[in-house]
Each structure stands twice: as C-alpha cells, then as structure tokens.
C-alpha cells in the first residue's frame, strides 16, 4: 500500500495521517459516516418509541405539565439552532480556505453547544432536586433516557469539536481534516434534527396533555 510508513534510516516518522486513504477520494468516508448516523437514528427511534409507550405512566407522580419549563426549553432550542447556522458558516469558510474564520465559527458553535448542554444539565438537576428522579415513574425513566442520550451525543460532539479545532490549528485545512469537519457537520446537524423531535414530542406535546 502506498500509505504504509517506510522506516528509512535517518528519516523522522510522521504518524499523523496527512494524506487521506485511497478510498477518501471517492467519498466513502462520508457515506460510511452517513450510515452510522442512520443507525444512530434507529437508536433514537427506539427511545422515542419507549417514551411514546411509557410517557403517560406517571405512577401518581408528576406529569410533564408539572415539571417542564418551556421558556428554558426555548432558550436551549435557540442555542442549538444558532449553533447549526454557525457550523454552516464554518463549513463555508473552510471551503473558501479561510482557516482562521473556520476556527472562529467552530469555537462559537462549541460555545452554543455548551450553552445547550448547560440548559439540559440545569433542567436535570432541577428535576432531581424536585424529586422527579428517573426511578420515580416510567414516564421519568423514559424521559431521562431519551433526553440524556441526546445530551450525551452533544457532549461527545463538543469533545470532537475541540479535538478537531486542535487538529486544524496544528495541521491546517488538509484534505483529511476537511473530511473530519464535514463528518462533524453531519453529526451536529443530525443532533439538531433529533432535538426537533425531542422538543416537539416530549416538551410541546407533554405540555398539551
């Protein structure tokens, strides 16, 4: 293979994969990542199904209308929607070859993601403080699993974002880094799509009952 590291004497080994593998030129990284997202989508579909089935089992405990704070959900939704457009701007600046602007937009995206995560963590701590813990009722178990899984995805998205910013800072807009930024873009926008389902089904419909 052409990308095997040749250890010739006196030459410094470079383990950082600057040149993409042969398949990358044909875009198989993106289709592979897309298939991962689709399987992740099935995980969320299962969690939505569980919430749909168990979401009305309050066990004489609190219901969504007693617990949820819609203005807070609106703020976190706004943060996530804004982070989608800022990531879009990062993608455009990357395509134009502007490394500095890409990093700035990625940083803003990360801050908005952290703001979203802060809202979720505040809500969770508030609920637990009120005694609305996951083991209180089937509704709360399925709620914490669904929203918690989404929040966990956002957490790992932020970790990935920071890693990618360090890589971009060190190596610049190489083809390999470009593909990584494109994959994180898909991941980030995918989490936004899942959140649309969460705030529609869990929060808005929960308040209606």
């Amino acid at each position, binding site marked *: 293979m052409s990308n095997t590291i040749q250890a010739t004497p006196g030459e410094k080994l470079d383990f950082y994969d*600057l*040149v*993409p593998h042969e398949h990358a*030129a*044909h*875009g198989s990284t*993106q*289709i592979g990542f*897309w*298939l991962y997202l*689709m399987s992740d*989508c*099935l995980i969320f*579909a*299962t969690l939505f*199904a*569980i*919430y*749909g*089935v168990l*979401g*009305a*089992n309050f066990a004489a405990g609190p219901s969504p209308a007693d617990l949820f704070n*819609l*203005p807070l959900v*609106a703020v976190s*939704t*706004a943060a996530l*929607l804004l982070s*989608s*457009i800022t990531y*879009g*701007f990062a*993608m*455009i600046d*990357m*395509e*134009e070859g502007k*490394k500095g602007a890409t990093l700035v937009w990625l940083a803003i995206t990360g801050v908005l993601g952290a703001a979203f995560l802060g809202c979720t963590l505040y809500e969770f701590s508030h609920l637990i403080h009120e005694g609305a813990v996951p083991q209180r009722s089937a509704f709360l178990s399925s709620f914490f699993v669904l929203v918690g899984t989404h929040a966990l995805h956002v957490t790992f998205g932020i970790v990935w974002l920071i890693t990618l910013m360090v890589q971009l800072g060190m190596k*610049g*807009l*190489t*083809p390999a880094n*470009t*593909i990584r930024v*494109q994959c994180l873009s*898909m991941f980030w*926008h995918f989490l*936004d*799509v899942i959140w*649309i*389902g969460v*705030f*529609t*089904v869990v929060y*808005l*419909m929960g*308040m*209606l*009952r």
Partner: protein
Amino acid sequence: MSTVTHDHVTDTNAPGAHAHPNPSVHGDGHSHGTRRTYLTGFALSIVLTAIPFWLVMANVIADTTIATLVIMGFGVVQILVHMVYFLHMNTKSEGGWTMMAAIFTIIVIVIALSGSLWVMYHLNTNMMPGHAMDPVNLM
C-alpha cells in the same frame, strides 16, 4: 459518484497551504450549501420552531388533538428543512445511496414507532381496565 480526482500534493504538507482554497471539498459527490441556503434554512427553522412554541405557550388551540397534530406537522416540516438545507440531502449525492439509506431508515422507524404504539395501546386498554391511557396522543 464523483469522477473528479484531486491532486492532493498541491494542498497538503506545506504549512502555508491553508491560505489557498481547498480543492478537496469540491466535487466529492456532496453538495454544499452557500451562505444564502444556510440563512434560508435558518430563517425557516426559526419560524417553524417559534410557531409551535407560541401555540403551546399562549394556549392558542383549545382542542388538544388538533394542537398535537399541528405541532407534529411543524416538527416534520422542520426536520425536512434541516435535511435539505443543513444536511444537504438530495437524490444525487453518493450516487443516491445517502437517500436510499435515509429512506430505509425512515421506513424502519415508521414500522417500529407505529407498531410499538399500536400494540402497546391495545395491550394497555385490554389489560388495564379503568386506567385511562392514550399513548397515541403522545405521538
């Protein structure tokens, strides 16, 4: 599939190479948005988020069934907007395989969701008399 091959030698390894436009992001079988399409998608998603929040917070629609259906409709439209404007889904990227995978996933999701709700609704209504439950309203 893309038939464009890139000369990666031109834009890699050199520390100052990032000053040039990056050719690796073009012609790779993916369509990319412009500032304009991203802003269009953003404006649409803001509107499609604000309206259902307003409907619920201001209690606009008295009938909860109608309100639920309207909110679900807004959610579905917004998911489509995000798929088109942010995820850049179309029938052409990756030779149509992204669309194929997405359609397959949506079919599986519809079967899993509708099947679970349908079966569990009947199980609940048949097994627990007097327990007023209507999981269909959740979805």
